[in-house]
């Protein structure tokens, strides 16, 4: 499958319904691994990086024979150098690669399974970043599957490991398990009722990190946040994943309470806000990505609360990606200036949202 097809494809995992998926959009587990016999990527020569890419290409062939891994379709290795800048931007928007993999370093690579659940970034900050991405709240399953891919790769590659420090990473903030678990959550009611900051700042005290997804970490545009663990050393992986899951469930419960309160006390205002958002998204001709993200949040809430029917909730997750600048340009097959993007975005939103029914009550 070409990288462009992967980009434009809506993966199966994004289309189904999963546990807590009205508030938790996705769960991700990432494992950092390095080779014992190579300097970390920022010190590798171009030749070493190239050799390692080739070793990974062989390892991928081997991993594809693994029963468990092959259930996710064959994994294919792409060289970042062969991917256009626009496609890289879109891969970042799809959360399949980091901005760092898209822009920095030499001889970087991306391995991705057909269903986009499993992926591996090569020669980013660490030699390997193994990733598993699931819909809804499924951190334990994501950890298990990422660990299986880790096991399969370990049969072909010798990873840097010390009994004391665990898996060794370029940055000591990742050492030990090398595990970063994160969930993306949509918490509009907590933001509307001004509880988000209080609840989220409490997470910092239990070793969790919160950031906004849209708006570069400073602001939770679209009311979408990412919660992840900070500590990677000293805890068992299952413990890290269970702690994060427990915290996420608490936020989910708080968000549900806030939604109930809004429905009890401010039903008509909610119907109005959602109806307006739906109206603008379905009828605008020029719309910026920020406005789109903000209104999409209202529409998603409208679907969750039953104000909007006839649209699957996952349309929100999909449109969050599809209305991003890189994605729109890959879809168009050409570079677009800001106005052209705003026009195409409006067209896309019209076509996707007109099929739904707004039933304000």
């Amino acid at each position, binding site marked *: 499958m070409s990288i462009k097809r992967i980009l434009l494809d809506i993966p199966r995992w994004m289309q189904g319904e999963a546990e807590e998926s009205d508030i938790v959009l996705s769960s991700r587990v990432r494992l950092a691994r390095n080779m014992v016999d190579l300097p*970390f990527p920022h010190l590798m020569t171009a030749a070493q990086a190239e050799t390692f890419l080739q070793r990974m290409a062989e390892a991928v062939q081997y991993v594809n024979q693994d029963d468990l891994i092959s259930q996710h379709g064959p994994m294919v290795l792409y060289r970042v150098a062969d991917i256009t800048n626009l496609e890289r931007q879109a891969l970042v928007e799809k959360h399949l690669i980091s901005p760092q993999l898209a822009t920095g370093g030499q001889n970087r690579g991306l391995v991705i399974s057909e269903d986009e659940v499993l992926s591996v970034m090569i020669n980013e900050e660490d030699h390997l970043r193994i990733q598993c991405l699931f819909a809804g709240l499924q951190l334990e399953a994501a950890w298990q599957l990422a660990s299986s891919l880790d096991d399969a790769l370990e049969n072909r590659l010798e990873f840097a490991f010390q009994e004391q420090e665990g898996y060794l990473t370029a940055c*000591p903030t990742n050492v030990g398990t090398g595990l970063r678990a994160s969930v993306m959550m949509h918490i509009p009611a907590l*933001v509307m009722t001004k509880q988000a900051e209080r609840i989220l700042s409490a997470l910092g005290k239990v070793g969790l990190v919160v950031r906004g997804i849209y708006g570069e970490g*400073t602001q939770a545009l679209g009311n979408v946040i990412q919660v992840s663990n900070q500590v990677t050393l000293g805890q068992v992986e299952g413990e890290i994943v269970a702690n994060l899951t427990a915290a996420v469930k608490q936020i989910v419960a708080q968000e549900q309470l806030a939604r109930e309160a809004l429905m009890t006390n401010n039903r008509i205002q909610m119907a109005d806000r959602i109806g307006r958002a739906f109206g603008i998204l379905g009828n605008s001709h020029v719309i910026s990505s920020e406005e789109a993200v903000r209104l999409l949040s209202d529409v998603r809430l409208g679907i969750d609360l039953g104000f909007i029917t006839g649209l699957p909730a996952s349309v929100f997750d999909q449109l969050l990606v599809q209305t991003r600048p890189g994605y729109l340009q890959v879809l168009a097959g050409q570079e677009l200036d800001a106005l052209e993007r705003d026009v195409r975005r409006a067209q896309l939103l019209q076509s996707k949202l007109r099929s739904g029914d707004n039933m304000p009550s």
Partner: protein
Amino acid sequence: MQCERCGERPATVHMTRIMNNKKEQIHLCAQCAREQGELNFEPFSVQSLLAGLLGSGFVYPAFEQKPKPESQPICQNCGTSFADFTHTGRLGCAQCYETFREALNPLLRRIHGSVYHTGKVPRCLGRQVHTRRGLAELQEQLQRFIEREEYEQAAVIRDKIRELKRELSGGDDSEHQKDFA
């Protein structure tokens, strides 16, 4: 130049932010610059956290000697010095961890609250590491029984320790086959 925040509109506002004693240029469009004012969450960057920890003295508790970068060895494998590490926040290779272990430990404790990995172990090393972890635990138990003068239990533990030690020295891993080979 495009706005760094939205990547959509041209950057017209150029700001300098000082974070952890490091100057940082920020280029934003007018709309994003306005919205920067209404920050909801603290921006978080692992690199800046690390730079902050390394830069300030409080990484190293008073009772611990703060390592002087110039007195630290240089990694024989990759040539990284401790000063390089404090600049970039990144180590150069696997061997760096051994080379700088003494200086890294207080930092790891600060970041993670621990300096010992307890999680997954590569399968090729798995059994030995698990045996050693078990051994360390038993030795602690033994110490506790001896302190409480519960010599009967202590003797049981001592036997178990002997058994594990025998396994570690003479035990081979040949029956620990890889599942795939």
